[in-house]
């Protein structure tokens, strides 16, 4: 490299925190905390004997503020322990977010490779489907689907997976179009390997970095979308706690208790912020073209 006129001549920036995979350990720690909370949340939701933790009502102790006796985060309008409801809600968010991210990324990967590598007709067809999907703002399509399927988490997961793949398919398609011009892919083609085999052997490994990055990113998007749908009453149905549901309920009692809205909003925002930063950091780390080495 000549370096005579390269713009990256500034000295390296000092980092306060050590990094792992391009992401500060602080962010990994926050992510780990949310993961632990989510696992506790699943336990509380799925083990029947524990459900009383978040369902027990007490009309004598409604709207208790945080740090009350026995209720570290206070109680809601029905006197339920808000701490447990929040943790269960995080569990729901993380579950839906992860599942939707994995499904949309898988779909996007498959269709993106299909569009980019299996000829012009496949490309044109996939593009039309993507554009039709994109004609509806994600949340609108999700709302319509959730409306058709009837409210509930299953509908939300299906709706978000069916809308989320399009963006990723476009990215994968672009990657594949450039990858297929590379020598080793061309060489494999000349050697007579089948398209499916080339896709699996040569294209997929090259798509791993962007797939990882986008999985994290989609998880953030899906968590927001699930909360939004639940907020509108189309997602998790009461009494199942979800962050969106807590926010929607809390909104009606803003005058008497602010903490459900603030705490659930904080948990949600922090989760999304962390995931966004992690996906940005991963992208800079794994994809030198976008970020710049090191």
């Amino acid at each position, binding site marked *: 490299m000549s370096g005579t006129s390269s713009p990256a001549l500034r000295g390296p920036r000092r980092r306060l925190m050590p990094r792992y995979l391009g992401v500060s350990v602080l962010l990994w720690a926050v992510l780990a905390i949310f993961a632990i909370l989510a696992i506790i949340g699943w336990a509380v939701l799925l083990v029947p004997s524990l459900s009383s933790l978040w369902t027990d009502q007490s009309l004598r102790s409604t709207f208790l503020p945080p740090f009350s006796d026995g209720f570290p985060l206070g109680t809601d309008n029905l006197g339920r322990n808000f701490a447990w409801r929040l943790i269960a809600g995080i569990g729901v968010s993380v579950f839906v977010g992860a599942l939707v991210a994995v499904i949309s990324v898988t779909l996007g990967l498959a269709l993106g490779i299909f569009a980019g590598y299996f000829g012009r007709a496949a490309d044109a067809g996939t593009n039309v489907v993507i554009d039709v999907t994109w*004609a*509806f703002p994600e949340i609108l399509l999700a709302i319509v689907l959730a409306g058709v399927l009837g409210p509930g988490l299953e509908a939300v997961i299906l709706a978000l997976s069916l809308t989320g793949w399009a963006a990723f398919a476009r990215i994968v398609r672009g990657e594949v179009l450039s990858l297929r011009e590379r020598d080793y892919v061309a060489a494999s083609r000349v050697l007579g390997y089948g398209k499916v085999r080339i896709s699996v052997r040569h294209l997929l490994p090259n798509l791993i970095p962007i797939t990882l990055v986008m999985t994290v990113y989609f998880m953030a998007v899906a968590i927001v979308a699930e909360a939004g749908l639940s907020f509108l009453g189309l997602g998790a149905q009461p009494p199942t706690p979800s962050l969106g549901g807590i926010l929607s309920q809390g909104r009606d009692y803003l005058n008497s208790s602010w903490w459900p809205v603030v705490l659930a909003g904080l948990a949600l925002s922090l989760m999304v912020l962390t995931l966004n930063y992690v996906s940005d950091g991963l992208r800079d780390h794994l994809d030198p073209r976008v970020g710049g080495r090191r």
Partner: protein
Amino acid sequence: MWYVLQRVGYAVLVIFLASLVTFAALRVAPGDAITSMLNPTTTPPDVIAQYRQSLGLDLPLWEQYLMYARGLLTGDFGISLTDRQPVMDIVLNGAVATITLALAAFIVAFGIGVPAGVLAALHRDSLFDRIVRGIGSFFNSVPNFVLALILVLVFAVQLRWLPVSGIGSWKNVILPTLVLAADPCALTMRVTRTSVIEQANADFTRTLRARGIPGGRVNWVHVLRNSLNSVVSLGAVQIRTLLGYTLIVEVIFRWPGLGSQLVQSILNRDYPVASALALLLAVVVVIASALGDLALRWVDPRIRVSSGGSA
């Protein structure tokens, strides 16, 4: 010219397919119009059959779609199941409120986002740049309904400066506009900043400086002009984002626009209204994206010629 026709044709195709989607959703939805209007347990079967026939529900699907499409083209979007109002009236009533809100947010997002992005890029790594980026990633991560609730809590419930929700005075517009504009504004800022930095480092700026063109002119005329195409292509995307967000923001602020109507109609299982509104929003998005593509060709002389043939 050929490109324009091509692009318009493609938009029409996408709209047609989108109408198939909304039609299908209408059909697939549990319970059709009859079961919503008439109680099937108390209404005699022959009356139900008569209603079915009068609404064309006994015809084959493709004929039903033709009826549906003819209705759309003639402005007959069907009748609301809940209040028997023509859907067209609902659309017209809500459109003004939604357009007002979306337009205000669009202006705020670009009016603040573009200049802030340019300034941040020109003073890269300055305090201003860091503040702008901080605010940007904050608004990018805080979901808009959370932001809405926090703003309501602070400015309406605690400080009582602004109304909680509803419509009427100019004060009602402020919070929904801010909430709606926050994320698009952050994105606009980020895209503008990146694009300006890229262009400011481009070779041609050095040539201009070598010819003694004043630095201000290099930045505000040449760099900005070259950054314009990413801002324009962003515009179409933003319209889609904004329309999506209006759904939630209108519900939160009880803003009587298309978004809250749509959510309401879904919760009420008023499928004709929901399907018509969804398609309407989709049409706006498709038109916006086609206009965006056309504007891009107008803005960027390189695209204009390279694929347009002899125009």
